[in-house]
Structures are given as C-alpha cells and as structure tokens.
C-alpha cells in the first residue's frame, strides 16, 4: 500500500507543479457558473454541455502544458506564431469561407478555424518578445515598429470583417505597448488622433456594423432588426431583478428570445436566472482573477513576463467588460465571448492558454531575480 501510494503521490505532485492554485480555483469557479448557465441555455441542445466539457478538458490540458513552460521558452514561440498567424490571416482574406457575410474561417484538413483567434495571443507574444529584446535601448522608433506589428493583423481582421476580434487583438496589442512604457504624451496625442480618425473610420464600416452602433444609441429604432438583440438581452437582465428568476427558470432564455444564448449572450441567461446577486458573484470572481493577474505581473521576473502577464490580465478584463457591457446595453454588440463562461472551444482554449502563461510567469518569477 505504501509503495503503491508513492507513485500516485508523485504523479499528483507533478501534475500540480507549476499550477497556481488561486488562479485555478477562480477559473474553475467561473467555469462552473458557465456550465450552470450553459445547461440552462441548452435545454433543447443537450449535446452542448458535453461538448463544452470536452473543450474544457482540452483547454485545461493546454493550460497545464503552457504552465510547465518557462517564459523564456514561450518567447521562442513568439516570432513563428506571429508570422504563421499573419500568413493565415492573409490566406483567409484570399481563400477563406464566408459565413454570415464575413470571411473568417479557414479550412485546415477536416476542420476549419479562425486564425484571428490565434492572433489574440500571438500578437502580444510577438510584441512582448520585441520589447524584451530591445529592453535596454527602447526608443520611440521601437514603439512605432510595435504599432506597425499591431496594425497589420488588426487591419486584416477588421477587413474580414470581425470587429469584436479586431478590437480584442488591438486592445491586447495596445496593452503590451502601454506596459512597455509608451509615453503618456504620445498616448494622449494618439487618443486625439483616434477621435479625429473616427469620422473616416465611420465611412469604412459595413452597414451592419454602423447599424449596430446606431441601434446601441437607440435600440427602439429597429426593435425587430438590429435593436432586437439589445432589447431582448436588456429585458432578460432587467427582469432578473435582485435574486434572479432561479436556475432553469429564465423565460427570456427558454423562449428563445435571446439570440446567441449559448455564446456571446450567455450572460443574459446567467443574469436573468441569478439576478444582481449572481452578477455580483461573477464580477467579484473576475475582479479576483484580474487582481491575481496583476499581482503575478507585478512580481514577474523579466520584461517579457511582465508584459505578457499584464496583457493577458487586461485581455481577461476586456473580454469580461465588453461582453457584459454589450449584453447590458452600454456597449455595441460585437462578437466577444464572456471569458470562461461562453460556449465555444476556441475561445476557451485561448483563455486557458492565457491562464497558463500567467501560471508560467508566476512559477518562474524568482528564477532570474534570485
């Protein structure tokens, strides 16, 4: 018996090695809430819960694997990942499948995937790697080059068009640049430029994108069209009240009033059934996740690690904020999932790999400094 327990213990020890338990607990708690909401939203498609479970296992494995790697090892992936991602984006632009009027998908053998999703991690990796290399002699020129590295994939994704992903990729890229120390003055100037650029940008938007922005300002103008998502989601959230309608009792969700109720709008399902109290729990979990992420970033050993940890943490925040903001009607509807809750394997994989990176940074925080 003693002999038999030893290898088991060792395996268990090896398994938890490098895993930040705080982070894991928070993430798993979020995932559990996700399953609760997904189960409710999937009353007519029970297979989805199982699918999501499989995705979760895969994502956990990926997280574990990444967590085992040292940040230095991760750096090696930066350039190839970025280049491959960029090539794939170009390939999508040339040969991609058109789904719902957007060219986002690329066939790879039997499956197809969105290269833009990959960019969410490849771009910060690339930028962090670049800044890390130029750490001792950072100049404005480096920031300009970083901006170029950001703008190319961003532009390609906007062109697909996939505003949600583009916004996320752009944001994550910007976070790296921000943490790398871009001067406040330049940021102020860029912000001013951005406001000015809004006007020609408006002209470049697709009709449906414009409608989404316009209907955000006044959803009632198109209650059966573009405003429908917002109105119904807002009704779901609002009708949830303080304590919600109770699990599996959401009428908005169960009567198919909520579009995309498994994926981007799962927060509406959650909020309807669990109410303000549920939302508070969710916000607290995200705050803890972000807080933990910031702590890890603060204690990171290298610039690369710091930048990656900071960017990934802010990426979590961006996902959560944009999604909850759009479902509750204060942000335009863009395709951004609720992190760790929305149905969908790809997004889950990205998020868990991000978590894995945080764990890796946390595990290796003292290696260089001590």
């Amino acid at each position, binding site marked *: 018996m003693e002999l038999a327990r030893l290898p088991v213990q060792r395996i268990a020890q090896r398994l938890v090695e490098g895993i930040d338990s705080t982070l894991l607990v928070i993430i798993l708690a979020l995932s559990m809430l996700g399953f609760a909401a997904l189960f409710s939203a999937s009353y007519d498609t029970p297979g989805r819960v199982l699918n999501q479970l499989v995705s979760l296992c895969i994502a956990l494995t990926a997280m574990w694997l990444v967590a085992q790697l040292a940040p230095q090892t991760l750096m090696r992936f930066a350039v190839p990942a970025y280049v491959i991602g960029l090539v794939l984006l170009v390939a999508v632009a040339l040969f991609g499948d058109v789904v719902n009027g957007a060219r986002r998908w690329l066939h790879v053998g039997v499956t197809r995937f969105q290269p833009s999703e990959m960019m969410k991690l490849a771009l910060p990796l690339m930028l962090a790697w670049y800044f890390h290399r130029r*750490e*001792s002699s950072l100049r404005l020129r480096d920031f300009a080059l970083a901006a170029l590295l950001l703008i190319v994939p961003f532009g390609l994704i906007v062109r697909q068009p996939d505003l949600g992903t583009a916004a996320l990729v752009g944001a994550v890229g910007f*976070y790296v640049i*921000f*943490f790398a*120390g871009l001067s406040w003055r330049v940021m102020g100037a860029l912000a001013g430029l951005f406001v000015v650029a809004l006007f020609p940008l408006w002209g470049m938007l697709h009709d449906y994108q414009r409608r989404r922005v316009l209907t955000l300002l006044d959803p009632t103008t198109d209650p059966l069209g573009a405003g429908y998502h917002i109105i*119904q989601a*807002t*009704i*779901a*959230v*609002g*009708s*949830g*009240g*303080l304590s919600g309608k109770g699990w599996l009792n959401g*009428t*908005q969700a169960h*009567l*198919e*009033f*909520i*579009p995309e109720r498994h994926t981007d709008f799962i927060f509406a399902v959650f*909020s309807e059934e669990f*109410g*303000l109290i549920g*939302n*508070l729990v969710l*916000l607290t979990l*995200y*705050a803890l996740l*972000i*807080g933990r992420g*910031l702590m890890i*970033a*603060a204690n990171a050993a290298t*610039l690369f690690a*710091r930048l990656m940890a*900071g960017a990934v943490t*802010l990426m979590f*925040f961006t996902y959560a*904020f944009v999604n*909850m*903001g759009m479902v*509750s*009607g*204060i942000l335009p509807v863009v395709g951004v999932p609720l992190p760790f809750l929305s149905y969908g394997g790809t997004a889950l994989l990205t998020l868990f790999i991000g978590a894995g990176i945080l764990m890796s940074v946390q595990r290796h925080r003292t290696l260089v*400094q*001590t």
Partner: protein
Amino acid sequence: MPSLLGHGELRNSERELQQFQLRLGVAGVAMLVAFTILLARFVFLQVVQHDHYRSKAEDNRISIVPIPPNRGLITDRNGVVVARNYSGYTLEIFPRRVKSVEATIDELSELIEITPRDRARFKRLTVETRNPESLPIRTRLTDEEVAKFAANRFRYEGVEIKARLFRQYPFADVGSHVIGYMGRINKDDQQRLEDEGVDANYRGTDYIGKSGVEAKYERELHGTTGFEQVEIDAAGRGIRTLSRTPAVSGNNIVLTLDMRLQRVAENAFGERRGALVAIEPGTGAVLALVSKPGFDLNLFVDGPDPQYWADLNTNPDRPLNNRAIAGVYPPGSTFKPFMALAALEQGKRRYNSTINDPGYFIFGDRRFRDSKPGGHGVVDLHKSIVVSSDTYYYMLANDMGIDAIASFMGQLGLGSPTGIDLDGEARGVLPSPEWKMKRFKRPEQQKWYPGETISIGIGQGYNAYTPVQLANAMATVVANGKMYRPHVLSHTENPRTRERRAIEPELVAQVPLRKEYVEFIKRAMAGVTKEGTGQRAFAKAEYTSGGKTGTAQVIAMKQNEKYDEKKVDERHRDHSLYISFAPLDNPIIAMLVIVENGGFGARAAAPITRTVLDYYLVGKLPKELEEATPVDEFEDDKESD
C-alpha cells in the same frame, strides 16, 4: 542580492519596474472604474427598472391569440335559415412576410388557379384594409387545391391555408336588402369600431355586416371574441396554451319576415323595378320587404370583385338602393283613402256628401283634369274611393286646406321616418307651408300657393313618401289608429341556451280615429276590389280584402343620373301603386306595392298584391314557384355552424 547588471543598468531597471507597476496600478484603477460602471448598470436594470423589464418579459412570453366567435344565424319567423356559416379554406398571403406580393401571386398561379378577378379583388382588399396581417388571394379552395398547396407549401414563404367561416345565404338575392351583406372590415369600419371601443372584440375577425340586418344587428350577431393565452417563442411560434377563454357565439336573429311570402312577392315582380312592404297591423312586424332589383348576397362574401361592384353602383336601376325604405314616391291615388278619412275625422265630409264630377276642377284660372275625361258624374265619399274620382279630392283638398291635410297625414306618420330597424330610411316629404319655407331659399319660392294644395289631394304635387311609410299608415288605419314601429327583428335567440329575447311591439302613437270612420274607409276600399279599379285583379279572390290603386306621375328622375336614351321613355312612364289590407275583418296584413314606371296601378301593382295575398291568406303558390325548391329545405338547418 547578486547582480550581473551594472549599477546604472540596475537603477534603470528598477525605474522601469516602478514605472511598470505604476501602470499596472493605473490599469487596475481603470478596470475597477469599469466594473463599477457595469455594477451601476446592473443595479439600474435589475433594481431600479426591474418592474418595467419584468412586465416586458411577461409580455414577451405570453401572446394573446383571439378566437373569433361564430356569427349568429339569421332565420325567418318560421325558422327558415336565411344566413348561415360554412367553413371553407382560403389561401392567404401575409404581405409582411413576403418580399413581393406580385411575385408571390405569380408563383402561386403556377400551382393554383388565380383568375384576373381574384387578383383585382386582392388589390382592392390591399387598398381597403388597414395594416392587414393576411389577405386572401383565393377563397373556397377545393379539397384538391388544399392538398396540392399543402404538398408544396415549403416553396411559398408567407402564404398559408386558413380555415375560415364564411357567410352563406341560401336564398341568394331574395330579401337581400333586409338581410344585408357582409364585407371585410375596412378602414372606416375599423375607425368606427375603435370609436365605439369594441375593436378588441373584433380581433381575429375579418368580416362585418355592411347593410341590412347584418349591419343593424351586428352586435347581436357577432358574439364575443374568446382569447387564448399562448406562450410563444421569439419567432412567434406557440409553445403551449396557458389559458383559454372560449368565444361566445353571436345570438341568432329571428326575423319577422316570412321568407316564403318574400319569395312569392319577389317572384311576382319578375324583372320589374319596385318595392313592396307588408306589415302586420297591430304589431308592426314586417312580413315582407321587397326592393327590386336585388343582388346576390353570396357574391359579397369574399369581397365583391371590382367589376360586380362597379356594375351594382353604375346600374341605372340602382340595385343597392333599398327602395322600400329609401325610395321616395308620390303616392298617387293611394293617398285618397287617407284623405277621405281626414275629411270624416275633421268633419269636412259626411258619408253621403256628394259632388258632381264633370271631369275637371277649376281653381282660379287653372283647370285640374280628372283622369277620366268625362268625369264620374254624381260621386259620394264611398264612390270617390271605388272609382278614384280626382275631382272629388281636388275639391276636398281645397276645402280642407294644406294645414289640415298636413296635420292629419303627419299623425299617420307620413313624411317622417317610421323608425324601422334598418339603416338608410328616407324621410319623404309631407307638404306644408312650413316645409316649403324650410325647403326653399328664395322668398317667392317659400310662399305656399293655395293652388298647390289642389294636387296634394290626389297624392301628387310635393307629396313624396316611402313605401314603408304608406304601408305603415295603412296598417295604422286598419288597426284603428294604433301605430306601431315597423320592425324586421322578431327576437334574438341564444344559440346555446335557446333562450329567446323577444322584441315587444312598440306602440308609437294612438292616432285618434273613430272606429266607424275606419270601417267606412275599409268598406270603400273593399269596394275597390269588387266593383272598382281593383276589380279585375281581385276577381274570384277566396278572401276579402281592401285596396286602392294609385298611379303616380313621374315628373323627372330624382337623381342626377345620366339618361340612357333608350330608356328615357320607359322611365318617364307612371309608377303603378296599390295599397291594401286583408282580410276585411281583423286584417292581418297591410301592404303597399309600387312598380316603377309600371303604368296604371290596376295594371301592375294590383296583380302583384293579389299574388302575395293569395299566398299569405290561402296558401296559394304561383305555378312557377310550386316547382321551385321548397324553402323547407332550409328549415332547422341550424347545425351548419
């Protein structure tokens, strides 16, 4: 802390780290602010506006689906069904769900026959209906067509087959003006329903009574719309029924009309234009009410096709016009019995007062001619009615004066609406100085000239009454002055409980008439049928009756019609009238018949009266109707709804 870095680099690195941590802090604060905004939004939605959104969610969940009620049946006094419902299939287009209505119709026509008439009718419906959910392109689909469409329905988005109840009129055009037609609820109807606050009760209902009893008793017939609370999804599909308030069928309407009599009467007119009103004295119940030509009520059920509708409206015979209550005619000599009665009541004449009738009456420098060139010689009151002496009544009118005439005729209800329970009743003209004052603008026209009184005496001049007024005046006289409001509704019947609500005869006035005088007039009118102007028409009658012929001059056509050259002559001919009651003792029917441009009263109107009375009093059917479908076939057919 061993370091491989130089002093300057270390300081630089430390500064960088501090800067990084500062930025982490800034980001942290920014994120906290962002989450606070979200929290505020949640509190706003879920606490402050919770009630609002909760009710919105409730509305979302439950849809109220109306269940239109079955419309009440209409039967005659003997239970013969004159309006019933049958369920049929219609092919309906949901305009909001199709891209192009035209293209959809074209596609449909490949599968199911759609005639240009159907298209025209559909177009008309599109224009007339406010915000239609669906409109029928075809009605009365055959089973084969239903099956054909069902098999191909996937090809036609926004097109559905619906089972609906349709109105059916077994008698087609018989009694069309009384029964009335149904039509789709148009914008005006919708507005009226909204004004009356009953539009909710018409949700799910497409048709409404447009004329006759169908319109007048719409509220009785319609019933109460039921509602089904259905839980629906966002696509509007019903998931399950939560509660159901069944519709309450409309009440059945039982008419005072006798459809057999009505059919006999209409048949007697043949192709001639005219009107007939038969009233039961002592109750006011309308036994028959004819306006010829009529129209086929069944052709209105799907919405009349524009061609038929145009024909009806441009037809110089004006079939839609209900002549029995809206037609205004000079009464001609049918006015004389009333004049005679007035003379007796007002003491202007006695039974034996005689005059010498030379064939004319001279008033001032004008000569009023009698219809009989040589005159009738010595004429007393009785004879004046039997032979219809004009001269007698010229003199009588002159003696009585217009005010006395107007006052007496007004008491009998002439010149004012009878209040019959049908819409569109005309007022007619009871001539009097007051009337003339109001009618005309210029002072010289407003003055009443004594000479104008003379022709009033023989029912000409400004005299103009509706058939129902004359018939009711007759009924009033033979009921010894008891004037009842004429009505076509006998009672309503709850289709489930069979509970009846009868309409009590409404005594409008008790005209002070001496029984003796009434008897005298009745006998004089009976004389008409035995030895007078109605003698030929009533030869060998198996019952007693009283009557009076009338011939009314047609001075000009009333309406601003375009004259059809070929018809001018025919339409300038005199109207033929006959007023009657039967039997002599305790009359059970009083009637007025007018045949437009029918010539002498004795020639056209009297024979029609004979035919109708023959049937009503002794059950004798004209030959051509003996072989026709017996109306009994329609009797007690109440299960059809």
